[in-house]
Every structure is written in C-alpha cells, then in structure tokens.
C-alpha cells in the first residue's frame, strides 16, 4: 500500500539510459560504484580529483566515458535533458570518435561535481542553459572519445604484440589482421593505461554518426514510449511524505498566521509546517496533501507584496519609455537623422508575462541519509547552485549533497533558477520536519503557473526611418522590462552600466546594417519574479525587429526578403538561411485571397534561423497552414533531433503568439491552469518543414533558436493576407478583417 520501492531500481528502469550499470572504462574497478568521476587512470582506485587535476582542454575519458566488461559504453551527460535530446547528441559525439556501434551506446546523467562537469560557458558551475550544451561539450567529448579509442587500441596492440599502427577500430570491434576483440574484452587493460594528452580527432569526412541521416535514434525513445522513463515525480522512497505548499497569492506576501485545525483532520495528513515560502502540508499521498492544503487557513501579510495589476505596471513602463534610458547601443546620430527622414515607421509593442508551463509541474525528492549526508532527486538544471542551496539550508558541506539528475518533463528555462527556488523549498521542508522522513515536494499545476519566474513583461517603442534610396537610415529604440539578472545571485554575470544583455539582445546587437542606431533600456522594478523563457530576450526582440523591418520594407516598396538581404551584407549566415527558407517556401509565388506569407530571420545563441509562415485569415481567426524553416547551427550532429527542436519550437511558441498571457489583478495571477493559459493543441499545429544548412563551423544550440522567428513570421504573414499590421503579442485578432 505504501511505497517501498527503492528508487535506485526505478531510476534504472530505462535500460537504454542506465545509470546503474556496473563497470567502467576501468573494467578493473567493476565494483558497481556509480562514482565515475575521479577514477584514477593509473591505479584504478577511486579518488577525488581536485580542480586542475586535468589541465584545461585535456582529454577526460574517465569523467565522460565508461566501457564495461559487458561491452556497453556509457557516456556521462553533464547536462539536463529536458526534451531537447542532448543525451543523444552528446552520446553520438563520443560514439563517433570511439568508432563504437550505436547499439552498445548508453547515456547516464553525470553526478553534481563542478570540478569535472562545469559548463565551460558558465565558469565553475555545472548547469544547462543558453542552448550551449552541445557547443561546450563538443571539444571535450570528441577528445574523451578519441582518448578512450586510443587506449583500447594500445591495449589491443600490447595483447596481440602488434604495432599500434596496425590496429584499427570498426563499429565497436578492435581489429588487427585476423585478430578481433570487443571493447568489453579490452576494457580492463585499457582502463589502466595513461590517458593520451592529445588524441587524434577525426576528419569530418570520416564521421559515421555525426551529421549522418538516420545513423542514430534517440536513446530515450523506448523508455518514454512505454511509461518507464523516470522523472522527479516518479521517485518513491521508503516512508516518503508528499508535501504541498500554501504559497502567498501575491508576490512578496508572507505568512502572518495559520490555522491547521481542519487540515489536520484530513485523512493521511501527517504534518503541517511553516517554511519561508509558506506553509507546507505533508501527507502519506499527494491527494491527501492537496486536500489538507484546501482545508488550511492562512492569513497573509502583504505589506511588502506586489499588489498592482499588470495593466498598471505596463502603464508605468509606458511612462518610463518617454524618458531617456540606459544606453545599450549607440551608433551615429539617430535622433537628428530621424528628424530629416520622409518615410518612417513608429511602432510600440507590448508583451505579457508568460509561464513556462512545462508538463511536469515542479517537484523533487530529498532525504537525509543515515550518515547525515543529503540526497535529492529532480530534473536538476543548475546542479552547482542546487547542491550549494541544499547544503546551506541543511547544514552540510556541498560535497555531502548527492544530486540525482533525472529526465525533466520540460523546462523551457524554468528549472534553471539562480535562486534554486523549488529546490530550496524542499530542503526547508525536510529540515522543518527534522529530517524524519524523505520529502517529495509537489507543486500542483496552479502552483507552477502562478509561481512567477515568468518571461518578463516588456514594452518596446521604436522609430525607424528610410533614406531616399529606401534603405534604413536610423533606428531609435526604447525597451522597458524587468531584468532577469539584476537582483539575482547571478547579477555579477551582468554587463556593466546596469544593462542586462538579456533585455536587449537581438536589438542592440542586430545583424542589420543600420548607420544610426540608438537603443536605450529602462529596467522595470515590479515585484514579480522573472526568468529566462525559451530564447529569453529574443522572445520579444525578434518580434519587434522583424515586424518593424517588414513595415519598413513595405514603406520602401520593396520585397521583404530582398529588403532584408540589402541590410544583411555583413551577415552571411543570416543571409544564407533567409535565402534557403524563401526558396524552399516558394517565396513570391501567388497565394489565393485570404492567405498570406510572411518571413523572419534572427540569430540567437549563435544559431541562425529563418522562417516563412503561410496563413489563412478568415473573420477573426488565423490558421497557420505551413511553416518552412532554414537553420544554420554549425555542424549538425543529429539532424533529426535538430528538425524536431524546430518543429517543437513552432508548437511551443504558437500559443504565445495566438493567446497566452499571464496577467495580474491586484497582484494576483489570474491564469491558473491550462484552461486560462492554454498551450497549442493538435488541431492548430501547422505543417513544419526544416532545412539544415551544411556547415563545418563548430556546433551551436538548437533548443531555443527556433522560437524567436515564429511570432514575426506569422505576424508578417497576417499583414500580407490582410494589409493589417499587428504588433504586440499575443496577437489581437479581433476585428482583423474589419468585421
């Protein structure tokens, strides 16, 4: 009746994604230990490796590659896979350099250890974000795979008494003359060999998986198609209590007092405790915890809470925009040039708060082990911060906190939280009950949706003008919105002068050649928490840039693709994706009345995406018929995963283009579930075609970059179909056809 399954068993339910396999490249240490990081190549002993134990850029096969005597190769994945498929892509990099057979490849999430698994773009911090998982692993994993391959070959040469030059590897088999051995047969002797400092990396022409269509399939497909993949919500520990928290209905509200009398009467409710973020109800099952919370009476103190409505905050933003702001970019003299231009576009754009609304509501499990150390399970995304947060709250050193990173049921940025919000909350709860039982903190959908950490609400005001030849002469731009970084523990990563680059990215660094550019920023100061939301600042800046550019093209009487290309002479990769998308979409071919085609191109996270949308407008309804995308993300490691990410970006972004907003009335979030904040559904999904530019540039991200162009390509298509220029998101379709 109660749950007594050991999670170690359920975590390994997915055999393709098995964190518990015994053995390692050091077959010599087939001890069943999970501690892979820190195996010494020379002795086979498990030992802690301090920072600097590996010179920067050195091959680290022991940290990333395990080869078992059972011939299974496991790649340690230092990043969270929240659907973007990074486990498959990173495993493919190793498999290729190793010349392994794809069937012998597995992946496992790495433990939390910033000394081995830091994100190269984040400094000494393990974490996933900024669509850089592939980019910051590319060299590291190629070297690890190549080093492991060389060690296997050396072991074979020694065993067979042949020259190393006469040994080769083909699809998981080490060969010399008529001699053959599997990786598993060589693992033990390979493991104790020194790690080569500079293993030879493959030429691109020799890749067997990287960039090869159909060569790899997702490692998580089977588990996720059979209900056996393990998420945080699925963790079951002996004696575990489920906690549901009564949170303040307004941001910044605090518990004044609470009455637990009725809540304690609910069957299976065990405990009710006050924590910094509210009052936690602990019960033997989730339903009882939810019922207990319903019966709980909490009086809140809103003295320092945000009590305004979102309309009032937006009105304040508009007032701020009338004044000069912080200078985010400045070139030439936009103000005086704009005074002299004949044709100009003046536009304002409003963007609402948006919830990430991942399908798995935030949750995690935490417990204190008998030796006093802490262990936790969740879809961890900022492991170093999460580990330190648990350590600080529970009073143990960080190295005594074990994190088990699991598949996350989506994130879209929400789990990459500088304050480790929900992780801190679960630590506070287990501490409040004096660590007497494992705690599973579960946020309901309502907690998740009303809990803040939204894409910021943003206001843009632009004036842009054309010179007599119909080229952009000047562009003046003011952005108002709350900074993600300022006030967060990551504020030091901020650029100087109070400018958060994520507020203006995509505007201040626009690829368009604009001789006079003036971009200013006001930081909003409202008490609503904000965070990165799949493609971050680009979620709004691409809409503004690409709609205004489209309006300027119309004012110049030029074709929107040709007009963009005129201004992308210094941006060959943007130009290339734009041309490819236009060509594949049949740009310029006629469409029937009521239909329209629109285009957008935008770089984000060093990836270039162009999109052409075809829409049908009838009454005040828009149907997206077709989306054609062209992508340049450098070397396309797993082309089908790349296509899937862009298809998914369309499905993800579409509802934010058509209807989604998080609004506040007197400080309280009005949208609480999927009825009032409704994601895209099956009948709305357009046909999406994705074309990938062949490239030998280093690989860049693909999780986020499909999102920014969805809104403007659709908005511009609606303009083409109807002649009406919409701007703000979500699009106001009422009265579009003048009805």
């Amino acid at each position, binding site marked *: *009746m109660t*749950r007594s*399954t050991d999670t170690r068993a*359920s975590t390994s339910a997915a055999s393709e994604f098995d964190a518990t396999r015994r053995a390692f490249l050091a077959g010599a240490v087939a001890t069943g230990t999970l501690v892979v990081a820190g195996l010494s190549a020379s002795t086979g002993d498990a030992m802690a490796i301090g920072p600097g134990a590996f010179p920067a850029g050195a091959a680290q096969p022991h940290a990333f590659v395990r080869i078992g005597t059972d011939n299974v190769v496991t790649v340690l994945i230092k990043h969270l896979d929240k*659907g973007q*498929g990074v486990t498959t892509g990173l495993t493919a990099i190793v498999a290729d350099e190793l010349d392994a057979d794809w069937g012998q490849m597995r992946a496992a999430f790495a433990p939390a250890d910033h000394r081995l698994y830091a994100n190269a773009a984040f400094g000494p911090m393990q974490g996933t974000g900024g669509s850089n998982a592939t980019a910051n692993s590319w060299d590291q994993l190629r070297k690890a795979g190549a080093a492991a391959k060389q060690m296997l070959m050396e072991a074979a040469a020694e065993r067979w008494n042949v020259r190393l030059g006469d040994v080769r590897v083909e699809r998981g088999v080490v060969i010399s003359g008529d001699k053959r051995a599997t990786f598993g047969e060589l693992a033990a002797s390979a493991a104790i060999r020194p790690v080569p400092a500079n293993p030879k990396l493959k030429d691109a022409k020799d890749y067997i998986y990287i960039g090869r269509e159909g060569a790899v*399939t997702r490692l*998580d*497909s*089977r588990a*996720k*198609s*059979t*209900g*056996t*993949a*393990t*998420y945080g*919500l*699925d963790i*079951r520990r002996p004696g575990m209590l*489920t906690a549901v928290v009564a949170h303040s209905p307004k941001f910044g509200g605090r518990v004044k007092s609470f009455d637990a009398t009725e809540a304690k009467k609910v069957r*299976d409710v065990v405990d009710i405790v006050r924590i910094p973020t509210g009052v936690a109800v602990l019960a033997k*099952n*989730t*339903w009882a915890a939810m*019922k207990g919370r319903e019966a709980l009476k909490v009086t809140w103190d809103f003295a320092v809470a945000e009590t305004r409505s979102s309309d009032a905050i937006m009105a304040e933003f508009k007032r701020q925009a009338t004044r000069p702001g912080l200078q985010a970019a400045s070139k030439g003299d936009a103000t005086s040039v704009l005074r002299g231009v004949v044709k100009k576009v003046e536009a304002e754009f409003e963007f609402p708060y948006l919830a990430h*609304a*991942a*399908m*798995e*509501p935030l949750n995690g499990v935490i417990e204190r082990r008998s030796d006093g150390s802490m262990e936790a399970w969740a879809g961890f995304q900022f492991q170093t911060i999460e580990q330190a947060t648990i350590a600080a709250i529970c009073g143990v050193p960080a190295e005594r906190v074990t994190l088990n990173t699991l*598949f*996350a*049921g*989506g*994130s*879209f940025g929400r789990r990459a939280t500088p304050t480790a919000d929900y992780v801190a909350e679960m630590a506070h709860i287990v501490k409040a009950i004096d660590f007497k039982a494992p705690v599973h903190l*579960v946020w*309901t*959908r309502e907690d998740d949706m009303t809990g803040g950490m939204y894409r910021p609400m943003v206001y843009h005001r632009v004036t842009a003008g054309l010179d007599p030849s119909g080229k952009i002469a000047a562009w003046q731009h003011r952005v108002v919105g709350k900074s993600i970084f300022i006030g967060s523990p990551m504020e030091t990563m901020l650029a100087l002068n109070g400018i958060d680059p994520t507020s203006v990215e995509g505007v201040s660094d626009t690829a368009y050649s604009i001789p006079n550019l003036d971009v200013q920023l006001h930081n909003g100061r409202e008490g609503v928490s904000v965070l990165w939301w799949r493609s971050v600042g680009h979620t709004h800046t691409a809409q503004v840039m690409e709609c205004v550019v489209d309006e300027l093209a119309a004012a110049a009487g030029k074709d929107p693709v040709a007009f963009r290309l005129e201004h992308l002479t210094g941006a060959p990769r943007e130009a290339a994706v734009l041309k490819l998308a236009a060509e594949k979409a049949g740009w310029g071919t006629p469409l029937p009345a009521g239909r329209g085609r629109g285009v957008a191109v935008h770089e984000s996270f060093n990836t270039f995406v162009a999109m052409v949308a075809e829409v049908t407008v009838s009454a005040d309804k828009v149907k997206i018929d077709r989306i054609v995308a062209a992508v340049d993300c450098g070397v396309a490691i797993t082309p089908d*995963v790349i296509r*899937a*990410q862009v*298809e*998914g*970006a369309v*499905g*993800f972004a*579409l509802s934010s283009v058509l209807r989604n907003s998080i609004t506040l009335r007197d400080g309280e979030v009005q949208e609480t*579930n*999927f*009825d009032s904040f409704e*994601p*895209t*559904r*099956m*009948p709305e*999904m357009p046909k*999406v075609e994705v074309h990938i530019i062949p490239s030998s540039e280093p690989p860049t991200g693909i999780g986020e970059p499909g999102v920014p162009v969805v809104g403007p390509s659709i908005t511009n298509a609606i303009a083409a179909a109807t002649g009406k220029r919409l701007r703000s998101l979500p699009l106001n379709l009422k009265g579009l056809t003048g009805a």
Partner: protein
Amino acid sequence: MISLDVNGKSVQIDADPEMPLLWALRDLLNMTGTKFGCGMALCGACTVHIDGQPTRACQTPVSTAVDRKITTIEGLTGPVAAAVQGAWQKLDVVQCGYCQSGQIMSAVALLTENKKPTDSDIDAAMEGNICRCGTYQRIRAAIHDAAKQLA
C-alpha cells in the same frame, strides 16, 4: 478497502473513495507511468483506459472505477499498442516525454476504434492531450504509420 481491476489484476487499496484514480495508481499502487499534468482533465497526461475508453484519471474518483477494467500504459498489450509504440520509436516522436504516456493511451484508443483515421479524426481524438514540447507533427505521423502497420 476498495477493489480495482488494473491491467487484468485485482488489487486492493485502502483509500478515500473520492481519491482520483490517478493518485491511487501513482501513490498507492506505485504505477508511475500515468502522469499528473493539471488535475482538471485539461491536458490528458493522466489518460488511462476504463472499459476500453480513454479516460482522464485525475478526474475519476476511485469509487467510480470499481468493477471496471482499468488499463494503464504499464498494461498496454496487443497489436494496436505494439504498432503505436513501435511507430513512436521509429519516428522518434518524444522530446521531454512526460505527456507521451497519455498521448499513446489516446492514440491506442483511437486506432482500436478506427483502423484508418483521417487527419480530422486524429485532431478530434488527440485534441485533449497537450504536448508542451510541440511534438504534434510527429504524433500525427506516428498514428498514420501505426495505422499502416495494422492494415
């Protein structure tokens, strides 16, 4: 004690009769393949079959599931399930994967009733299942592919 027929087995649970089947499955029977998404039958992540009909377990009190055949993702068997799950893997439908148990339960129910669904049949049968990752294009293709396999 309440007696339920889950995946062909009779199981006993000691629960509040109002407890939704979702939580009985997940918390009392430790069958975690069925997911919690919204608690209001808005997203379909908790879809199970009750007497063959796709049903949202989060809005089904256990008391109403007594004496009925409950099938969860863990208990899916037969040629339709094999074709659907095979197509899902062949086309690499999943991304985060969290909604996919529910998607597959809805797809199996559709193909059990309708051997050759049109795009609008798929729209109608799958509209209640949200995929925040936006895998709809591949879900549609996988359902067509499974139908072809079954023909």
